[in-house]
């Protein structure tokens, strides 16, 4: 894998675009970008004012209507962009900017588009329009420093409330001619509100520059141009050229706002994609790490299985004199132990079904193994203790208990007593070692104790058994644990003669 040529091969279009942009001097700093964008917009405004002042449009009303429709559509699209961006990442400024833009697009634009008919003079603006502009200005002010506790519901309530009030005033003026004059806005008041709007838009623009947020400064710039367009309309509402200029400037302002909203949406999407990528990367890294662990475990399990298979084969082959009871038991116990270990590996895949087995046989066989290791173990259990479950489970549990005895009561004799009573087989395992002052070794104390007493309890519970730790008796020092097994109903058992092949001892009695 070569690095340099590979690097050139992987160089994408976006990389080239970034390099090209870096070469532009004005784009090197954030302020440079602001200056370029603001200068460009102002230049367009100047051109519009200069050009439209000299034109004599044949159909100014139609042009005005078309541009108003375009502005309304652009504003609606921008609202959609902003709303999506705001919802995706919970942008608090967008929460207040979107209702302002929506109010302007769906209420103010139609109002100012239909204010006069073709060939008629422009009437004085209604107080309702003034209310709309004030609400827009209010929403823009709040967007500069949005309050933490108020959410989108409040912002939309303010916008909808303003729109309804404005609508009510306009409708009243239309339906009641006697008060129509009183419900028009004086030119000075109109101009004052629009200038306030201009100032607030400038503040939004400055806030965007200060917080290094291109979307915000573009939105502020756009709203400023829209406000300026309305100022132009108030200054000169008679000439046809200025009517077109108003429409063009308003469209320009809304387009700039839309560009800001589009950039906000793009940034939001970039953030979402980056976060998703990071999460996915973490998942992948965890997956790869887990896969490595599994692979190591798989290797280990493979070797364990092969070793166990080989040892099991050898254990079966160990010659045993039929007269040598100890030898037979030792071989049987070794095979049982190997089977238990194999079951430990297999349990993850498919547990053996429960069966009837000779519990006393398992006890005796295990005792032989442990005596060989030097543990003083004595088993007292009547012949024919038939339990329900898996002999490997009992073997596992007893092995765990005997390991505990050897560890906590070294040198102490261990007595295992098996009895059957009321459908339950009770196997009491007792050593003479010290009991813990807390009242016996708790089941939760599993550190370093094989598979743990708790797991032993769960193992037994699968076949209706249980494990109980006795409370220490001050008159009789020592530690006692009882293993409870479900006893087989005597009628369900049919004794099967032992088969000559060296199968496990517990297989000699099987349920039908």
């Amino acid at each position, binding site marked *: *894998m070569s*690095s*340099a040529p*590979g*690097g050139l*091969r*992987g*160089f*994408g279009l*976006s*990389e080239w675009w970034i390099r090209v942009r870096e070469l532009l001097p004005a784009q090197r700093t954030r302020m440079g970008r602001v200056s370029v964008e603001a200068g460009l917009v102002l230049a367009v405004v100047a051109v519009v004012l200069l050009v439209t002042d000299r034109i004599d449009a044949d159909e100014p009303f139609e042009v005005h209507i078309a541009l108003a429709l375009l502005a309304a559509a652009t504003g609606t699209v921008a609202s959609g962009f902003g709303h999506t961006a705001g919802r995706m990442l919970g942008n608090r400024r967008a929460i207040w900017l979107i209702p302002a833009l929506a109010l302007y697009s769906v209420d103010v634009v139609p109002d100012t588009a239909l204010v006069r008919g073709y060939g008629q003079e422009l009437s004085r603006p209604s107080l309702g329009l003034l209310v709309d502009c004030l609400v827009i200005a209010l929403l823009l002010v709040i967007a500069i420093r949005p309050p933490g506790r108020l959410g989108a519901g409040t912002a939309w309530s303010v916008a909808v409330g303003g729109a309804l009030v404005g609508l009510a005033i306009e409708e009243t003026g239309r339906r009641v001619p006697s008060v129509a004059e009183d419900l028009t806005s004086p030119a000075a008041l109109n101009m004052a509100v629009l200038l306030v709007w201009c100032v607030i838009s400038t503040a939004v623009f400055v806030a965007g520059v200060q917080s290094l947020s291109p979307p915000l400064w573009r939105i502020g710039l756009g709203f400023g141009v829209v406000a300026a367009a309305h100022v132009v309309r108030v200054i000169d509402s008679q000439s046809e050229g200025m009517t077109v200029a108003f429409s063009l400037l308003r469209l320009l302002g809304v387009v700039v706002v839309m560009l800001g909203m589009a950039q906000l949406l793009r940034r939001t999407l970039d953030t979402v994609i980056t976060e998703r*990528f990071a999460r*996915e*990367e973490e*998942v*992948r*890294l965890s*997956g*790869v*790490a887990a*896969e*490595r662990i*599994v*692979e190591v475990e*798989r290797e280990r*399990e*493979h070797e364990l*299985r*092969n*070793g*166990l*298979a*080989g*040892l*099991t*084969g*050898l254990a*079966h*082959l160990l010659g045993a004199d039929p007269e040598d009871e100890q030898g037979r038991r030792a071989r049987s116990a070794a095979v049982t132990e190997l*089977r238990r270990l*194999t079951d430990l*590996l*297999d349990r993850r*895949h498919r547990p053996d079904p429960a069966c009837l087995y000779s519990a006393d046989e398992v006890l005796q066989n295990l005792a032989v193994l442990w005596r060989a290791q030097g543990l003083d173990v004595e088993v007292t259990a009547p012949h024919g203790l038939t339990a329900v479950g898996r002999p490997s489970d009992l073997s596992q549990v007893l092995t765990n208990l005997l390991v505990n005895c050897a560890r906590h009561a070294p040198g102490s004799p261990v007595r295992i007593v098996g009895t059957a009573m009321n459908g339950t087989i009770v196997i009491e395992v007792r050593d003479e070692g010290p009991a813990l002052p807390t009242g016996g070794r708790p089941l939760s104390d599993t550190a370093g104790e094989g598979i743990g007493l708790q797991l032993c309890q769960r193992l037994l519970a699968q076949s209706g058994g249980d494990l109980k730790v006795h409370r220490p008796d001050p008159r009789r020092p020592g530690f006692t644990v009882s293993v409870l097994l479900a006893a087989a109903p005597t009628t369900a058992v049919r004794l099967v003669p032992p*088969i*000559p*092949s*060296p*199968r*496990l001892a517990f297989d000699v009695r099987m349920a039908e």
Partner: protein
Amino acid sequence: MSAAAPGERGSGAQARAILVIDDHQLVGSSLILAMAERGLRGHSCRVTTVAGILDCAMGFPPGVALLDLDLRTSHDSGSLDELEVVAGLRARGWSILVLSAETDQRRIAAAIGAGATGFIPKSSPLPELLDTVAGAAAGRAPFAPEVRERWLQLDRSSRAADRRDRTRWRRLTAREREVLEHLAYGERATVIAEHFVVSLTTVRAQIRSILAKLDVNSQLEAVALLHRVRGTAAPRHDETVRHESPSTSM
């Protein structure tokens, strides 16, 4: 399974050689000793190359081969495809019983699809295992026809899935395959970008392209597909990917 009938001992089974192909000495030796107790003639083959195993088999009249499905090869001898062994032995008239600690059923199904007559897990009780071997040596099928058909069905579906994976894999460019290798090794995108001397954006674009071409929804799925195509679960950094020649380059 019942114990072997007395009449089977040393009868027809005796005529057929039983070759134990296992790299685990303890397993092989104990099996051969156990078979001897049952009157079965077992021979051990611990060679771990395809040619070596087939040569070893040539030394005996065709009989029953007990094949470990996960023969560990030494670093010098390279990798070994046990399915080639199955096909080679089958072509030479051997009846193959897969005897393995392998738990991946698709692998076992592949061996049966390649011609193995049966499968016995190594964790089976020895008498059961010997009964099956004796039966195979006597010419009895280890599987009922419907059981064998289920294995073959599993093999067919595995092969179909493998073909789909390979089709998707071939859509990737050489560079995308390299990037996916690095992803499977557990490297972060930033490290991959440094390695290829490209930007993080470029690597992300490549990863998006990989996901789209492989028709998966996450990087983890893409890595899993790579493992399936390679036939290994744990990628190593120095491993060479066995892929087809790249269709295009970036």
